């Protein structure tokens, strides 16, 4: 079952990258469609973050990851690398879980 998930996500990524270069001689994505799809990126990312931090399945939930993620975001705001942000977030999360 997990193989189906991994294979179909991989196939979709392959397809999205190859579609235009392979078909471009005859077909191009209309600019309006492109712009519309680009406008979806930020809301979907924000929704993923909210889902990760504030829900657990079909329940609303808060856990130690929320303060951890806030700490990680502060590190990102200070223009530090992602890995540093993840380590700081993980340390805060782990510390709170141990309390």
């Amino acid at each position: 079952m997990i193989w189906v998930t991994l294979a179909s996500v991989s196939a979709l990524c392959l397809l999205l990258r190859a579609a235009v270069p392979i078909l471009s001689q005859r077909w191009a994505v209309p600019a309006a469609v492109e712009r519309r799809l680009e406008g979806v990126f930020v809301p979907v990312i924000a929704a993923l973050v909210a889902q990760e931090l504030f829900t657990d399945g079909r329940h609303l939930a808060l856990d130690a990851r929320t303060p951890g993620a806030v700490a990680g975001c502060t590190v990102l705001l200070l223009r530090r690398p992602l890995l540093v942000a993840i380590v700081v977030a993980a340390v805060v999360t782990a510390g709170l879980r141990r309390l």
Partner: protein
Amino acid sequence: MTVTHPSPVRDGFRLGLPFALGTLGAGIAFGALAPGVGIAWPAAIGFSLVAYSGTAQFATISSLGAGGSLAALLVTVLALNARYLAFGGSVASSLSRNRLARLVEAQLIVDASWALALRARDRRAVLVGAGLASLLGWLAGTILGLTLGAAIGDGHALGIDVAVPVFFVSLLFEGRASVRVAVRAVSAGALVVLLAPFLPVGVPLLVVFVVALATAGAA
């Protein structure tokens, strides 16, 4: 070391190295998290090699962890990576004529390699060089993360699962900021949280996708 023959691909590789550090870090987080949601190490490495997409792979971890449906995951990945269609379109004319070579070169399109290629004289070479550098970082990171995850065991106790939201937030820092974009982001987050108790897992994300698509491009 003197370079006797100019090698634009190697130049592209060098240009891509700073970004490869970024993919290395994200790759470590992905590798450390993958076994926890049931992705065994050969599958994790294969996934990083073929999908080669942090957004898609972290969305997969998120979906597997929450028990969401495959259809919802695929729509999410489509929404997150539709930009590849645009990237592919803007470099298509610079790629090799040979169809198989084109296919391979297109697989090296990631945000960094695309952005560097657009500014280069030899777009194909920079795309390939920088794309390979990022891929190398991503694969090395995945393997390091898997090793690390196996060594420390319980990633939950060490808070490694927080890497997923932090990774996604880091993507929000890359785009142009505006009040309108911020309002859209906050509304999308609120919508998902409000709908979560009433809909099957993953479906609130679909609703956000549809609403965002319907309201996109209005400015």
